[in-house]
């Protein structure tokens, strides 16, 4: 693909945007120099190798034909991220087999895979996607057309350059990292269909309901059995693995080319607009390469609610040594605080949770006894402190405070703090007079006491009531 010597892709400019100073403090980004493999056949793209990148990326361009290309060195990842562009050759070679790519994901590497209808997708890629429950059209030349939303300027005849608004929320409670007001030009895209069973998959950009996928070779005249139609066509799909490694399938490699960045397009009803491909590409690469939607947990604290008293903040609790005790009693009132930040491009910002969503705390022993919404109580410049106060359950045992926050497009958080919950000591139960039902018995006891004392007095000092003579005992 591509003519030799033509700098078609703008990654170097995109990934090296000159306005950020990439202070990567996140664990994921510790390797500040991030490497991208541009998996391309074209040797001339090596000329694109940029300077040390401002956005923190160091790009390496490799061809699958390069024998020395290896994703792993001494069993460790040699690169942080991979960007795969469609190859000209049929296969991807021995260095990029599905097994190695999966191993790369399993070792926390991120992959941005681009597809193109112009060059057939290698079977190894299709089978890799099939393993992830992402389905590509069976015939390799298929592309997506939409006769209602196409670029009238460049594809007035073929209608294969889709014009789409920037991504919308997939669910009302999921944050949209790919939004914006712009229009994305999506030329010659490959449709993907996502399996319904996996929670790890999420579509980023979907086609409009009038779009469909067809094979220009076999179905040139009429389409009677399309592979995918309407909004079930995912043009950009994401898979976030259980280890939070990200894998993005980008349906149109051409959309990332220089010529579609900031180019002019014309909609069907004749409106001219500029493409937002540059911004969208930035969002996609930033999300895939862990610059967006990465959560970091700061302080995790718990203590008895009663001992904070009037003290401001938790410093007093810490000073008194009451912070994070290892043991509580059943029915104690306990406060749990957690500090969470979200990494946004180059800094940590406070995590904002949508009103319809919530960060949730579970208090569990085998299964959760309590699951409570954590409420944001304060903010620092780069974190939000969430808190919840609750009464421990009336059951002793080894419990744990657990925050298991899994959401689409956010890295997984699974925090566990184990505590012992003991039962009441003998002198911690409520006293009998606090139980109103016991008042009758308590009154009975003390009335008996009073009666006994009165009886003793009368027995000691009473004069017989009967006549002395009559009552005299007969011996």
């Amino acid at each position, binding site marked *: 693909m591509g003519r030799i010597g033509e700098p078609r892709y703008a990654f170097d400019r995109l990934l090296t945007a000159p306005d950020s100073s990439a202070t990567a403090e996140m664990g994921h980004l510790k390797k500040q120099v991030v490497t991208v493999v541009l998996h391309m056949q074209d040797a001339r793209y090596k000329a694109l190798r940029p300077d040390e990148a401002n956005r923190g990326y160091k790009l390496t361009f490799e061809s699958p034909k390069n024998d020395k290309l290896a994703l792993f060195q001494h069993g460790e990842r040699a690169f942080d991220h991979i960007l795969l562009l469609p190859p000209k050759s049929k296969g991807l070679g021995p260095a990029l087999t599905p097994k190695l790519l999966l191993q790369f994901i399993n070792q926390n590497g991120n992959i941005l895979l681009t597809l193109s209808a112009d060059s057939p997708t290698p079977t190894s890629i299709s089978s890799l996607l099939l393993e992830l429950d992402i389905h590509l059209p069976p015939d390799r030349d298929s592309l997506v*057309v939409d*006769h*209602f939303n196409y670029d009238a300027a460049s594809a*007035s*005849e073929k*209608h294969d350059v889709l014009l789409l608004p920037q991504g919308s929320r997939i*669910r009302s*409670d*999921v944050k949209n990292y790919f939004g914006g007001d712009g229009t994305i030009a999506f030329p010659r895209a490959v449709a993907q269909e996502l399996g319904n*069973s996996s*929670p790890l998959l999420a579509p980023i950009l979907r086609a409009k*309901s*009038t779009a*469909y996928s*067809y094979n220009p070779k076999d179905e040139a*005249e*009429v*389409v*009677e059995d*399309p592979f995918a*139609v*309407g*909004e*079930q066509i995912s043009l950009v799909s994401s898979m976030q693995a259980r280890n939070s490694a990200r894998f993005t399938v980008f349906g149109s490699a051409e959309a990332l080319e220089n010529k579609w960045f900031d180019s002019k397009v014309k909609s069907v009803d004749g409106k001219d607009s500029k493409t937002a491909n540059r911004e969208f590409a930035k969002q996609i690469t930033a999300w895939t390469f862990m610059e967006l939607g990465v959560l970091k947990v700061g302080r995790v604290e718990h203590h008895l609610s009663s001992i904070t008293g009037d003290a401001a903040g938790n410093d007093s609790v810490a000073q008194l040594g009451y912070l994070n005790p290892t043991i509580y009693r059943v029915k104690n009132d306990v406060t749990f605080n957690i500090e969470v930040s979200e990494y946004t491009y180059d800094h940590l910002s406070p995590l904002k949770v949508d009103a319809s*969503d*919530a960060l*949730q705390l579970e208090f569990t022993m085998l299964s*959760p*006894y*309590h*699951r*409570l919404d954590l409420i944001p109580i304060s903010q620092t410049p780069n974190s939000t402190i969430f808190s919840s106060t609750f009464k421990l*359950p*009336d*059951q002793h045992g080894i419990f744990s405070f657990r925050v298991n926050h*899994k*959401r*689409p497009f956010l890295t997984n958080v699974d925090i566990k703090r184990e505590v012992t919950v003991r039962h009441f000591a003998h002198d911690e139960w409520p006293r009998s007079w606090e*139980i*109103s*039902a016991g*008042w*009758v018995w308590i*009154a009975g006891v003390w*009335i008996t*006491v009073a*009666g006994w*004392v*009165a009886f*003793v*007095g*009368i027995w*000691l*000092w*009473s*004069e*017989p*009531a009967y006549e*002395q003579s009559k009552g*005299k005992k007969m011996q």
Partner: protein
Amino acid sequence: MRLPNQLLSSLLVLCAASLGVAATWGFEDATVSVNKRGAGVGGGFKEKIGQNKALSKPVTLGASETLKILLTTKEDNKAKRPHQAFLLVQDPQSKLDTSFAFQVKENGKGKIELTQKDLPTQLLSSTGPLDASLIIASFGSSKPYNGKAFDLTIELDSGSPLPASEKPLRYGKLPEIHHIFKSDPKSPPKIITLVFAAAVIAALPILLGAWISLGANLNHFSKAFSSSPIPHALFFSSILAMEGVFFMYYTSWNLFQTLPPALGIGLVTFLSGSRALREVQGRRIAGLR
């Protein structure tokens, strides 16, 4: 009704053509029919669909029925085969949609047959009627057609319910849990407790009253105290003190705080008691009681 409409649309097309606007896709002779399997032709529901004019009443598709649409697609007024001739079925509430392609011949004659089996369960289980639209479009500059045709009501067979589709796992907020292992014990209303407590307390004055009516008195008090004052005072107050010890044990003392004073008081009771009771015996022997 239909004639003026057709006139109007053809006028519009004419206008469009005269203004130099591209040709438009459309259709004619469109009929929608619903037939029961095995039933003869013309048995079931049949209605004509006009261009840009949705049917006013919904089309009902039963469990063993087949929905059939016949139409002739046209580019401007010429019958022609488009690349895309779809029936788009959409759930207006969930916005889920799917499309079904017409089988279109070269001369533009298109046909589609639809049964409940063809529809995905997500649409079958929708509560309201579905929107059915016709999409006719092709390459080139001709204006595509996308218009609502009718409301599709799904009538499920009550005998064979939908295959239970389990809701797939999605990460999101989970319902709150407030599990109570054992709920707190409850007390009866306080008023009942107070009534019975009052009854218990009232037993003391009744007892004392009964004793007094039977002639109980303290007439020997001065006699007892004049003959042996210290044993009587000590004996009675030690009994009181013992009750006091019990009270302290009940409210705050533990067993080790309780036992020493109880032993001391017990000794006093024993010693003073023997003296006091000897005095009482003396009164009995003297015939005073």
